């Protein structure tokens, strides 16, 4: 097939499975990413359902402690690497070329590979549940020396993360190059939609930190099998060194999972406020500062390891600083809403909820940033509450909002608005019922990663579990809405949302297989 070199001889593409296996089309690849992510979201969410069921009451009921640790670790790992990150890359694939007026991604073949590495990693991770010793049970953070005690599944996890890293790095290089080099004539950097900006910065973070993760898990592997002593005191190594290198990746990683979400929110709000985004320039600077600061705050995950006081103070101050650019973003969103002409279709509902609930998560992050308070709260359910507020009601809910926003463009059909509204309210209410009590649990002293707990934690756990089940059920409704919309529905029209002003809305819905083969003119 490669022998056909004429540029346009390939508008015909193979059909059936071969189309998806060999595709070089950014829309096909974006679709693949999004479906993959949805599958992983459901699977990792199902693991969380078992976690919540076990924690419904004190005592051991459903799973033994080892099994529980596996559920927790794999839930975290799969949500982060399987659900959230691929979903954002899916958005980038669909939207970046459309929003900058490019014919496709800069490296279409590489793009295909970035996707098709994910199932490889997914297969390794799923298979790891069935090998002797069982799947990873040392937390998604993989801390040694506990990690050293694991069986063959731990090696599979390392290799899977290597493959995921490779995929992310290639994907990120592709996105950066596309943005830097394929913008339509006239689209200067400061005219790019904010979503594209957030992805440019995110991709930069990915290229900067995924290789560091690769390095540190390589050290884990050689410590496990080849006799090195990176993380073993007897040989002059240090388990805490793992944590430093891991979090040097890990903290930027959490912004990798939130910056594109900021981009989506910054796209949705102006559309439904029918008003330009407030403070575009300061938004760009805020995103950049968040990214830069994210490299010097990592040790806030390690305050209880006992670092010198100067280290604690430095990392505390640096972490607190991130509240400033993030605050700028929140204020800008509120100012965009202010005196708009607002309507509340499902995407807007999700975007508004994200602004509000993400801020709650940001505040609990700030509480954790203060060393003395973090000493009390580290490794408790307060942290679990914090990161679900930023990850679920920050990242996941903006992904869901983004899906509602662009689904009409991608499929050509409107989704069922009434069901969408139901999904929103169920999700938002159940989410808060699930995770808000976890703040109290953490304050009262319930450690995370435990299958069984003391009696004073029983009531809030029960509430959280009930909320969790409703939250899970609500996501089944989401799957139904998406499938229904893909299969048919009211025609979406070229410009589904009257307030939208980015380039993709100048194309038909769904857009032609190859769009912007001649770049549009931007003034």
């Amino acid at each position: 097939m490669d022998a056909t070199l004429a540029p346009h001889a390939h508008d015909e593409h193979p059909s059936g499975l071969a189309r998806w296996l060999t595709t070089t089309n950014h829309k096909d690849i974006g679709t693949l990413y999004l479906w993959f992510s949805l599958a992983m979201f459901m699977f990792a969410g199902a693991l969380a359902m078992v976690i919540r069921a076990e924690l419904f009451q004190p005592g051991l009921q459903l799973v033994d402690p080892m099994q529980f640790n596996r559920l927790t670790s794999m839930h975290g790992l799969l949500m982060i690497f399987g659900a959230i990150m691929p979903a954002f890359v899916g958005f980038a694939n669909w939207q970046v070329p459309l929003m900058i007026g490019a014919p496709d991604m800069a490296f279409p073949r590489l793009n295909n590979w970035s996707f098709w590495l994910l199932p490889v990693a997914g297969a390794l991770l799923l298979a790891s549940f069935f090998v002797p010793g069982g799947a990873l049970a040392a937390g998604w953070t993989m801390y040694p020396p506990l990690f050293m005690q694991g069986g063959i599944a731990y090696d599979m996890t390392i290799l899977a993360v290597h493959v995921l890293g490779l995929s992310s790095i290639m994907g990120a290089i592709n996105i950066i190059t596309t943005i830097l080099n394929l913008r339509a004539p006239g689209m200067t950097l400061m005219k790019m939609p904010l979503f594209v900006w957030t992805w440019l910065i995110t991709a930069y973070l990915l290229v900067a930190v995924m290789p560091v993760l690769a390095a540190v898990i390589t050290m884990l592997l050689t410590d496990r099998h080849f006799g090195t002593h990176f993380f073993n005191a007897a040989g002059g190594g240090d388990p805490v060194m793992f944590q430093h290198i891991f979090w040097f990746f890990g903290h930027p990683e959490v912004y990798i999972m939130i910056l594109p979400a900021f981009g989506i929110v910054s796209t949705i709000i102006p559309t439904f406020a029918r008003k330009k985004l407030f403070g575009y320039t300061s938004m760009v600077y805020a995103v950049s500062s968040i990214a830069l600061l994210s490299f010097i705050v990592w040790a806030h995950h390690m305050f209880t390891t006992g670092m010198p006081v100067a280290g604690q103070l430095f990392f505390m101050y640096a972490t607190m600083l991130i509240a400033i650019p993030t605050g700028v973003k929140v204020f800008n969103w509120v100012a965009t809403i202010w005196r708009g002409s607002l309507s509340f279709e499902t995407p807007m509902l999700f975007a508004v909820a994200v602004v509000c609930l993400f801020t709650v998560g940001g505040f609990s992050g700030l509480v954790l940033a203060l060393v003395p308070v973090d000493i009390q709260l580290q490794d408790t359910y307060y942290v679990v509450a914090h990161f679900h507020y930023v990850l679920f009601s920050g990242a996941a809910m903006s992904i869901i909002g983004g899906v509602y926003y662009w689904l009409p463009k991608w499929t050509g059909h409107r989704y069922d608005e009434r069901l969408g509204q139901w999904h929103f309210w169920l999700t938002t209410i159940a989410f808060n019922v699930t995770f808000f009590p976890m703040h109290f649990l953490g304050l009262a002293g319930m450690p995370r990663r435990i299958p069984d707990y003391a009696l004073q934690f029983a009531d809030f756990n029960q509430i959280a579990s009930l909320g969790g089940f409703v939250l899970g059920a609500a996501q089944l409704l989401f799957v139904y809405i998406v499938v229904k919309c893909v299969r048919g529905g009211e025609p979406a029209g070229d410009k589904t949302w009257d307030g939208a002003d980015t380039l993709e809305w100048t194309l038909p819905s769904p857009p032609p297989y190859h769009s912007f083969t001649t770049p549009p003119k931007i003034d």
Partner: protein
Amino acid sequence: MDMHRRSLSAPAGLAGLGLAGPAGAEFALNLPPPATEIAQRIHDLHTLILWICFGIFLVVFVPMFYALWRHRKSRGHAAHDFHENPRLEVAWTVVPVLILIGMAVPSTSVVLAMKDTGASELTVKVTARQWKWEYEYLGTEVRFASNLATPQAQIENREAKGEHYLLEVDRPLVVPTGSKIRLVLTAEDVIHAWWVPAFGVKQDAIPGFVRDAWFRVDAPGTYRGQCAELCGVNHAFMPVVVEAVPPERFAAWLDEQKTARAAVQAASARDYPLAELVERGKAVYAAHCAACHQESGKGLPGAFPALDGSPLVKGPLAAHLAIVLDGKPGTAMQAFAKQLSDLELAAVVSYERNAWGNKTGDGVQPREVAALRK
């Protein structure tokens, strides 16, 4: 269920976020009541920060919800055209900086106080192992392990759960009230974290490294906490219990421990009939080995090997003793040489060789163990 540590001082701030806990006292909404000055300061710091965040939340979201309601298209509101305001933007960058400085100042002073481990009156070495704490009063010979005391039957829901379910141990750490206690922490296998919320102390115990922390508690009483770092299967079952007693009682307790220790040493100096060794070994096994290898000797498949029928246990004594004394590096099987006395080691090994289906009929004497220790 009635011994909950409650705190009714739950800041209204949380309630304001829209989802307060029900008013019942069953629900603890804040940090547990502090027992040390540091914990008190942390408590106050947290309350202060919470109120500030609550205030900011109102300042930001009251206008937003006002706009969501007032500036709706369905009410016929037309969009105004503005998208910049340099003065406003500078203000909302600078004001948060000032607020953050206001938070950083009190935090810094608490951090400095927490890290000051100098001038302590008593130093206790804490060694963490899967899944127990070992306490050693430095400068004395007193040393003991502290294990979970909650019976397995309660955990498996076969018995009603006790008041201190999962927060009770066989031997708590005993400390005098009113003096500055310094802990030096280390671990043997994986990372654990020693945590007592009421003291405001949480410190990782890191294998091969030494970290320290301190506390001074004034009110006598029992304080409970848990291991706070994922350390494997039984991470949930590794509580910390501290008993603070008046100094005189502490001195008396310490003396008792010293005599008891001398008695143990004397007991290791003679030989025992096999039946007595096995009898004593059963108790040692239950306290130190059953957490992993199980009462039944069947272990947990995939994690801990069965000792019942194990060729190693039924084979030559030397190899059996060696794994118990030195453990197996890189696995959960720890070295017991320093944890147990010669008599206890002799007893537990003799027990394993004769318990369940392992009817080897041989045993080992304390002096033989002593000889192996070098």
